[in-house]
């Protein structure tokens, strides 16, 4: 094996412990901690990365450890204070370099992981063709529209206990065939995922209980025909954001690159019975 692959192997062992490793997951990004993860301090950086990834975003202090050795395998108190100190400790150039290195390593790892699982004879061909696939976990997404978020009303009717369009009319009963099964990246951002605290209809009022669970995979829209159209007329900023804006209001938690389904309760139409659509 060539050197990168060997290094990849070693790093992979450590990475398996990382709960949200860039590779194994579906491209979930790290959470913001106001600065990139520093990863270039030493070859043992992966261990340290584990600790940083586990750190909480809170504001407690760390017991004074004047010489924080990142290569220590034991768990160090990785508090918010510690996080900030580490992130600010190295200059931008090193940070960027380290970040690039980490991204490249993750991509390589992903590739080699796929190759090792691939049973095809034509490994070379597969590796070439599969390499573009993994790039999307660092998404190049369009900037959020500057008009988004300003002046865009979201209207709610307490009597109907549901979202309505801004002109107050009930939405027209024409279902949109595309909305129903649209995947997350194409969904319009005008669809508000129902909050768990929103009005919950009693069992029996829902006419979509028969919907199979798999319909929720990757969808962000309503299920029943007579409310799917709600999205069409509800106040929505702009259709140009259909190309997969990260700022999708429909998006539940997780990174934009995540293509798998959100939890069923989250892809409901707003304020319909969440209990009925739970995965149980």
């Amino acid at each position, binding site marked *: 094996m060539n050197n990168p692959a060997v290094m990849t192997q070693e790093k992979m062992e450590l990475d398996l412990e990382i709960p949200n490793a860039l590779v194994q997951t579906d491209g979930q990004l790290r959470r913001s901690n106001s600065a990139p993860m520093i990863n270039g301090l030493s070859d043992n950086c992966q261990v340290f990365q584990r600790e940083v990834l586990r750190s*909480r975003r809170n*504001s407690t202090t760390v017991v004074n450890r004047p010489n924080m050795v990142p290569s220590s395998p034991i768990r160090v108190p990785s508090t918010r204070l510690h996080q*900030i100190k580490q992130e600010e400790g190295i200059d931008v150039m090193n940070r960027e370099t380290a970040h690039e290195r980490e*991204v490249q390593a993750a991509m390589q790892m992903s590739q080699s992981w796929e190759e090792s699982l691939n049973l095809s004879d034509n490994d070379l061909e597969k590796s070439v063709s599969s390499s573009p696939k993994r790039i999307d976990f660092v998404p190049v997404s369009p900037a959020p529209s500057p008009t988004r978020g300003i002046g865009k009303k979201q209207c709610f009717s307490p009597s109907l206990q549901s979202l309505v369009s801004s002109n107050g009319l009930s939405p027209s009963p024409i279902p949109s065939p595309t909305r129903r099964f649209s995947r997350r990246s194409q969904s319009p951002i005008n669809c508000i995922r129902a*909050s768990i605290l929103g009005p919950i209809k009693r069992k029996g009022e829902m006419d979509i209980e028969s919907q199979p669970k798999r319909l929720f995979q990757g969808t962000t829209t309503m299920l029943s025909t007579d409310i799917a159209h709600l999205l069409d007329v509800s106040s929505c900023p702009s259709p140009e954001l259909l190309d997969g804006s990260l700022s999708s209001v429909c998006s539940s938690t997780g990174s934009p690159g995540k293509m798998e389904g959100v939890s069923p309760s989250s892809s409901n139409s707003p304020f319909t019975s969440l209990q009925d659509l739970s995965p149980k």
Partner: protein
Amino acid sequence: MAGGGSEDMQWCFSQVKGAIDDDVAEADIISTVEFNHSGELLATGDRGGRVVIFQQEVENKSVPEYRSEYNVYSTFQSHEPEFDYLKSLEIEEKINKIRWLPQKNASQFLLSTNDKTIKLWKISERDKRPEGYNLKEEDGRYINPGNVTSLRVPVFRPMDLMVEASPRRVFSNAHTYHINSISVNSDHETYLSADDLRVNLWNLEINDRSFNIVDIKPANMEDLTEIITAAEFHPHHCHTLVYSSSKGSIRLCDMRASALCDQHTKLFEEPEDPSNRSFFSEIISSISDVKFSHSGRYLMTRDYLTVKIWDLNMETRPIETYQVHEYLRNKMCSLYENDCLFDKFECCWNGDDSVVMTGSYNNFFRMFDRAQRRDATLEASREHNLPLQLLKPRRVCTGGGGGGGCSKRKKDEISVDSLDFNKKILHTAWHPNDNIIAVATINNLYIFQDKVSDPDSADDLSASDMMCTI
């Protein structure tokens, strides 16, 4: 508090909001709860970036079984996940704090913030809409101009109440670190936002500029020893603010003294008890919440194990210290392992500053009656959800030996080892005028009210749940 005496407050269940099932979606986890200044509205924010506002239905207060019901009034998506391209990092849409503005006209305003961006939302009602357009159908489609034969002017007709939420201001790009607090000033013109190292002052009307008033970032980051955990304006003095630190100290700043308030005016710090010193001392001394009393005379802080009341006139030590869950002091190793030691609990005052409340684990929450020197442990649980059902006080026993060590296993006692640390109550709120409290478990919102004592009506108590007196 919850006890047998008639003068004690007894709390009973009013409502619970949210789904029943235990499989909680991350986005549904409640991250903040706040009453508005009149108490008529109750806002919650969650990790999915949504805000839900409940409105109190005004019922007939003369009825003994008066129940103030809160129903969904409005909901909107406040923040969305964003992406920082420069750092290749995702910015969570989780709502960290909501603060209401005092009401000035028919509309309501609130500030909501995630880690990086604060937004001012206007909540307004609409109950009329124009009908009878000349060129449009009622559903908005345009009529073929050839079919229009007469002229008519649209008129306003009543319609079902609609509540609109529109973002009026977006205050962004002012914080390098994570915003942990926002606080509206008593001048109703400005507000502060605080992150781990800085506090900024904004004008509500101006969103492209903010003043930095506190900056504790040292020139050399190696010298950084503590960070800002919470900040708040004084309720009456528009020049006074406080911020708490991860080392357990509170600094009061007077903006009249200088433009930059890096030098504090007062420092509230209690010397550490040497007998309690441990590896975790610093972690548990970190203050997770700071709240002025309504009177403005006192300050309440919450650290991991205690609630402390400070008199603004005395910096050396708090005037009152309440143990929230002292039985956890011996469990800190395991709490550190499961990250619970870093939980940030909030605390709140009641309307007349006589009682304070904070959350704990196992869906317990604690109330401390300052005047009567009593405290109570209550539980927010699905099991006690009959209307107006009284909450029984709970107790945690810590006796030694195996099996929990509770000497008499009463129904309302639980041993420390049986506590569920996944069920934590971090966010609580108290109605500004009445004895109505909102308690947020992970994904449910409980509303409790004090029982309107009526000696003649005994039917409020269900047969199987008799109040047990302490």
